[in-house]
């Protein structure tokens, strides 16, 4: 318990109960070597973006080991599914991942549709793609700003928010909300787009392409940023595979794995788009990859808006409130901004779900952190944590 003496360096008599840590700290501290310091990052730490808690053992500025502690934002979304009907469960999804709610929305609605064998009108499929991709862009923008803020640059997040506000304005027209959106319904989407939506979206695509050039000049080409990220926190394909990492982290490691192309859903097969991989498996690679993904998403949005087919946005006999899922089991996965978002649904034919398992990409991605942060500087550990793009409600569910 050498580390605990450190916090009482003056030898002042202390209440023995007042400084002993909780279960995690005590169990963590046992392995601490000579001259190391146990530091709790979080749950209220500015760079953990919410209530993630990371216990790190520091030797000077170097992280000897780091261990995330979860559960501060556990809201029992899976348990809630067992007492809710599929209809009542739709808004829960926006709360799971507040940055990319529409992907979760899609995963849940898609799982129910797959189980019930519901076909969705083509126009609705197009609108699903457009809204999901716009939402992915806004999620990546938010990540971009927050990540640079972790590195100490406070200004870019406000630039990112400017674009994010525009996306929120667009999505608000159809979803009615700006944060925990739920746009999808069983058998289609809740509302058709109007002229304003079409106009704003078409304006937004070239606008953001211009702005991405400014981002490059302001942040990406900055020598301080490059030096901070190059070679920091390499996560190779093997590490990703062992921990089940998906999404940009896996693609930055060089593997072309994207649910949109590997297990196609919706109408993604109708569009020509690039699934970027690489350029490197360090923090800079993940940074560049996410910016490249924004451009790929812009391509999809542009094509989808250009070829929006006419027709209804929901099937005629869409399920009503008292709808019962047929008995069975299914799994439906979509590509979220952070990786594969999956809903494993079991129904016994009753009013409520029998059991729902939410596959959150952030949970798997976070498990890489302990290994990647071993032996790096504290500032690098913060950069690695930021490059994982964690959304804590999604990690804890």
């Amino acid at each position, binding site marked *: 318990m050498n580390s605990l003496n*450190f*916090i*009482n*360096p*003056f030898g*002042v008599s*202390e209440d023995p109960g*007042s*400084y002993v840590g909780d279960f995690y700290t005590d169990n963590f501290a046992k392995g601490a070597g000579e001259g190391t*310091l146990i*530091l709790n990052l979080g749950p209220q*730490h*500015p*760079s953990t973006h919410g209530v993630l808690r990371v216990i790190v053992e*520091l030797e*000077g*500025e170097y992280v000897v080991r780091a261990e995330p502690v979860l559960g501060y934002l556990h809201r029992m979304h899976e348990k809630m599914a067992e007492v809710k009907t599929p209809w009542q469960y739709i808004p829960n999804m926006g709360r799971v991942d507040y940055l990319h709610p529409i992907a979760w929305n899609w995963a849940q609605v898609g799982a129910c549709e797959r189980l019930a064998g519901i076909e969705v009108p083509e126009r609705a499929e197009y609108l699903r793609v457009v809204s999901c991709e716009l939402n992915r862009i806004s999620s990546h923008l938010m990540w971009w700003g927050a990540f*640079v*803020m*972790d*590195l*100490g*640059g*406070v*200004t870019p997040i*406000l*630039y990112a928010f*400017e674009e994010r506000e525009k996306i929120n304005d667009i999505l608000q027209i159809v979803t009615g909300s700006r944060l925990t959106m739920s746009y999808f319904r069983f058998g289609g989407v809740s509302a058709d787009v109007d002229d304003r939506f079409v106009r704003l979206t078409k304006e937004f695509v070239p606008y953001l392409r211009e702005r991405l050039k400014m981002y490059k000049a*302001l*942040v990406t080409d*900055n020598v*301080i*940023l490059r*030096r*901070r990220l190059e070679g920091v926190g390499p996560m190779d394909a093997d590490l990703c595979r062992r921990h089940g990492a998906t999404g940009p982290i896996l693609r930055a490691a060089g593997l072309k794995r994207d649910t949109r192309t590997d297990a196609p859903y919706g109408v993604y097969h109708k569009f020509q788009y690039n699934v970027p991989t690489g350029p490197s498996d360090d923090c800079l690679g993940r940074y560049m990859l996410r910016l490249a993904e924004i451009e790929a998403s812009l391509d999809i949005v542009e094509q989808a808006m250009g070829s929006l087919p006419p027709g209804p946005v929901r099937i005629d006999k869409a399920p009503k409130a008292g709808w019962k899922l047929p008995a069975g089991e299914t799994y439906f996965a979509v590509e979220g901004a952070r990786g594969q978002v999956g809903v494993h649904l079991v129904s016994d034919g009753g009013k409520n779900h029998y059991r729902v398992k939410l596959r959150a990409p952030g949970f798997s991605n976070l498990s890489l952190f302990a290994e990647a942060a071993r032996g790096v*500087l*504290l*500032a*690098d550990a*913060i950069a690695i944590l930021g490059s994982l793009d964690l959304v804590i409600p999604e990690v804890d569910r």
Partner: protein
Amino acid sequence: MDLSIANFAQIIIACLLVIALMVGNAVVMVYVERKACGFIQRRPGPYEVGPRGILQAVCDSMKLLGKQIYVPGNIDWILYFLAPVLAFFPVLLLYLPIPFGRHLTAMNVDEGILLILAFSGLGVVSNILAGWASNNKYGILGAARAVSQAVAYEIPMIMALLAIVFLTGSLSLTEIVERQGSWPWQWNIVVQPLAFFIYLVSLVGETNRAPFDLPEAESELTAGFHTEYSGMGFALFFLSEYANMLLVSFVCAAFFLGGYKGPFMDGFWWMFIKAYAVMVFIVWIRWTFPRVRFDQLLNINWRWLLPLSILNLWVTAVIVRFI
């Protein structure tokens, strides 16, 4: 310098004026920094309190005054309360040799810059004490960073200033300003651009401002050495940070930018204009760049600034001696 009654009174009055300047500077800089930051981030900045938000600093200071002083458990009481005071008061002394005009100096000592350099070292003591006494791990990490950073960046800073001292042959700031002319091409920045650059980088490092704000790196150490200070304790650190910024800007203006001399009409206003231009520059880079990592910070210093400043000093010495 003889210590007569008149001299003593002069110093007392000067100290009072300096306190007024420090507080006034903080009030101005709170507004300037928030407005500049707002401009850079494309938002209005403060605009609710008073016309165009100019009373924002008053509200900020009232908030700090009214805040509960939260004292963490198991601290070293004496050092904990001594540290903010130690951060604030030595800065007073540093303003005394600053020349605002040919005869407008609180204490026209021949060794002015020596006094400033000697006493500016006290600032880091307060950082160590604050980090150590507040019984906080973030505080200790911040204090450790503050020490190595301050020690590292003081050396190239002194070297850069020494190059000017070699040129002038005097340690007195008034003398150094007097040797420069009124027009920009007669200033020391023209003959010593490298020293100016080195000084500019190390003054950001000395004042713990972004991108070198490692001792209080927000995303890593929450608030570094002043994590556990609230209310007036924090306010004193805040005041001393701005006071230190203004001081290094004054020194910069006196050494490199012609001090109180300027086109058309010499006077203390030139000193203020130049110093605040440097301050705005510091604010500007703070809100533009991300933070460097700690090993990079030290590498910049030991690998680049120090050899460059030694080289500059050596070349200057050779030129002064033989030409």
